[in-house]
């Protein structure tokens, strides 16, 4: 681990890279991982229409090459002894500010490389898919530029070695998501959705800024290793404040309660964007932040409890909303929210849970990306129709989409031996472990996680059956057909990941590998027998899927094309549990009232003072202007009077 905080010119840094230091050349090459998509994005945006012909090829190549570099760095990391796997190095001096001297540095370790591989691999597949999906869009080049920017920002976020560098990537992700969600901003509601995502993220960014400011005043540093070393002796209050501020940031980025409202509307973006946001970039950033800041959360048990609560609430929230949505993409979005809730819950359980949070993040990245691409494929076939009530019986017409989607469906359900089984079941099991001897916590969070699994099974099966099974409910103008190979191949690759990734990661010892980058964890025993938990989970999953099959999939089931009148809970879930109403009542309207008050104060007091002064001077001027009457003799008389007056004063003073 080398740490070059001395001021060296960039050239000298490169020299050090080649000649000395213990950081390997592969780790040094990681700056290229970020630079390639970034340069590609800049090229595509600057080249303009000239790049229309080959822009998408460059756009696909950049993350693909970045993935190869990531693999190189990964194998290099594997070849190192376990104690030397965390490598920090400084690219250049960034903010030389006396007591606050910050370099622009990267941290290459097990955690960041896991993310690099996930982001670049899934990202590349989504890029390839987009070539076909966006083939008829005149602005496809710009789309790829934004996608590359998104990937570059996410890579910077996960590779940063300090909170400030991370924040650059963090903001870059926010910007790219805004550009992509509002990609078809000719439609007003899409533009509004983009703005909503941006504003919700700003609220989270506020937390990030507060956290960094507290770190700066307390520790005089925002670098990971320095902050974490301070965390062992800093006051609990400081750490709790930092941890809660970081959690707020994570809630904004990861669409966790109470900042979850933007995620559903973010479906306004083209479907590959949804896949990218939900699988590889953006929403995973919050989980990454919490896991990366593990030492802080470890030292702030109150904040960790809040993480658990947020995760549990979001988990149920997303699941309940997902059960009622008829819009296929919005149901998937609610599912993401719920799954990220699982990850948050796991991240709040400490280092042992964090390992499974990341593992679930990776497997979820595969199966959710696969399902989103599948949803895009269905929309492609059905003329951009997203209402599941108008699908059904598509399994005969779209065999590949159906099969790949089925793999993702089985994976998210947690059916053994699909990927989700190895990650989600572990999280449920960990939720039943009593943290710090708090048995009630184990029961509460464990039951929530268990219930969430059953709900997940229900809403995902409902989605799957409504789209692919049952009676055909589409109109005669729609001719479902399989998508081109450019779209199906990424789906097949992701489906393979959904099937085998969990098994591979478990057999390869991913948890031990990742644990090296996290704090020392304490393996506790769950309050229930692990096999009992597994059995209960499986029973709930089967029950959920069976209910969904009875109501939406079986031959006897009828799915009305128009949503039927239903009871209060489902109506509430259809309306996202009134999240927008609440936000409007609590935030938007008071905010607007505040702004109106400020405007009134501005026009009344501030502008009023200025205008009043101007009016006063004008009226005085108007009175004085009457003296300019055009009579030379009156001027002369005035002058004479003045002279006499002055003389009189002078004489009066002198005598």
């Amino acid at each position, binding site marked *: 681990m080398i740490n070059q905080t001395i001021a060296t010119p960039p050239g000298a840094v490169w020299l050090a890279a080649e000649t000395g230091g213990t950081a390997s050349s592969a780790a040094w090459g990681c700056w290229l991982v970020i630079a390639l998509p970034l340069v590609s994005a800049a090229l595509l945006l600057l080249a303009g229409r000239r790049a229309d012909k080959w822009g998408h090829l460059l756009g696909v190549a950049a993350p693909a090459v970045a993935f190869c570099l990531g693999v190189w760095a990964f194998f290099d990391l594997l070849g190192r002894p376990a104690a030397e796997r965390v490598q920090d190095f400084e690219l250049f001096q960034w903010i030389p500010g006396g007591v606050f001297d910050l370099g622009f540095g990267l941290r290459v370790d097990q955690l960041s490389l896991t993310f690099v591989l996930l982001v670049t691999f899934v990202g590349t597949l989504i890029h390839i898919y987009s070539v076909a999906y966006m083939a008829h869009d005149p602005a496809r080049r710009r789309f790829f530029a934004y996608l590359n920017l998104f990937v570059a920002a996410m890579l910077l976020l996960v590779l940063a070695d300090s909170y400030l560098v991370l924040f650059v990537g963090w903001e870059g992700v926010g910007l790219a998501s805004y550009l992509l969600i509002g990609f078809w901003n000719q439609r007003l509601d899409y533009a509004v959705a983009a703005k909503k995502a941006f504003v919700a993220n700003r609220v989270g960014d506020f937390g990030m800024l507060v956290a960094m400011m507290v770190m700066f005043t307390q520790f005089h540093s925002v670098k990971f290793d320095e902050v974490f070393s301070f965390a062992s002796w800093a006051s609990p209050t400081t750490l709790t404040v930092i941890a809660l501020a970081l959690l707020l940031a994570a809630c904004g980025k990861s669409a966790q309660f109470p900042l979850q409202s933007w995620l559903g509307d973010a479906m306004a973006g083209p479907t590959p964007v949804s896949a990218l946001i939900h699988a590889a970039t953006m929403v995973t950033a919050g989980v990454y932040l919490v896991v990366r800041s593990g030492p802080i959360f470890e030292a702030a048990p109150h904040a960790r409890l809040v993480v658990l609560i947020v995760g549990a609430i979001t988990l149920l929230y997303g699941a309940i909303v997902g059960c009622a949505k008829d819009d296929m993409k919005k149901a998937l979005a609610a599912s993401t929210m719920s799954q990220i809730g699982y990850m948050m819950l796991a991240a709040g359980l400490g280092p042992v849970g964090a390992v499974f949070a990341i593992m679930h993040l990776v497997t979820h990245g595969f199966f959710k990306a696969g399902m989103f691409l599948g949803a895009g494929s269905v929309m492609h076939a059905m003329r951009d129709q997203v209402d599941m009530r108008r699908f059904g019986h598509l399994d005969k017409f779209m065999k590949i989409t159906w099969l790949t989607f089925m793999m993702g469906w089985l994976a998210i359900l947690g059916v053994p031996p699909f990927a989700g089984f190895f990650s989600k079941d572990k999280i449920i099991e960990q939720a039943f472990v009593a943290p710090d001897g708090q048995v009630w916590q184990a029961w509460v969070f464990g039951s929530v996680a268990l219930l969430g699994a059953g709900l997940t099974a229900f809403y995902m099966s409902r989605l799957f059956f409504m789209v692919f099974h049952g009676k055909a409910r589409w109109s005669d103008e729609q001719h479902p057909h399989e998508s081109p190979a450019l779209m199906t191949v990424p789906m097949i690759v992701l489906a393979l990941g959904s099937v085998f990734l969990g098994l591979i990661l478990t057999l390869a010892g991913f948890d031990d590998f990742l644990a090296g980058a996290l704090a020392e964890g304490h393996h506790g025993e769950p309050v229930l027998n692990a096999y009992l938990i597994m059995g209960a989970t499986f029973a709930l999953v089967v029950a959920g899927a069976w209910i969904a099959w009875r109501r939406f999939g079986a031959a006897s089931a009828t799915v009305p094309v128009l949503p039927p009148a239903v009871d209060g809970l489902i109506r509430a879930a259809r309306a996202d549990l009134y999240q927008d109403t609440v936000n409007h009542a609590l935030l938007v309207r008071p905010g607007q009232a505040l702004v109106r008050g400020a405007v009134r104060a501005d026009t009344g007091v501030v502008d009023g003072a200025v205008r009043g002064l101007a009016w006063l001077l004008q009226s005085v001027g108007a009175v004085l*202007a*009457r*003296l*300019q*009457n*055009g*009579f*030379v*003799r009156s001027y*002369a*008389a005035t002058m*004479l009077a003045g002279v006499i007056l002055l003389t009189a004063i002078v004489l009066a003073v002198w005598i």
Partner: protein
Amino acid sequence: MTVTAYLALASALFVIGAVTVLVRRNSIIVFMGIELMLNAANLAFLAFSRMWGELDGQLAALFVMVVAAAEVVVGLAIIVSLFRTRRTVSVDDENLMRH
């Protein structure tokens, strides 16, 4: 004669000049009033110069005469050109710069 007599004469001349400027409309007469005031000032300068036995006052008077000569040149030229354009020499009619 005492200096008081000179000063009384100078004051009388100044007042006559000032009144001329204030009450007459014809610019040439106004001009003459101004000259009268200038020369009243000159007379005061000379009287004081003699009183103190120094040349400063006479020097000032010479300066005033030079300036007055230059002023007459410019002033008369202005009056002539005004008369050419506006057919009048009344100062009350020269009111283009009125508010």
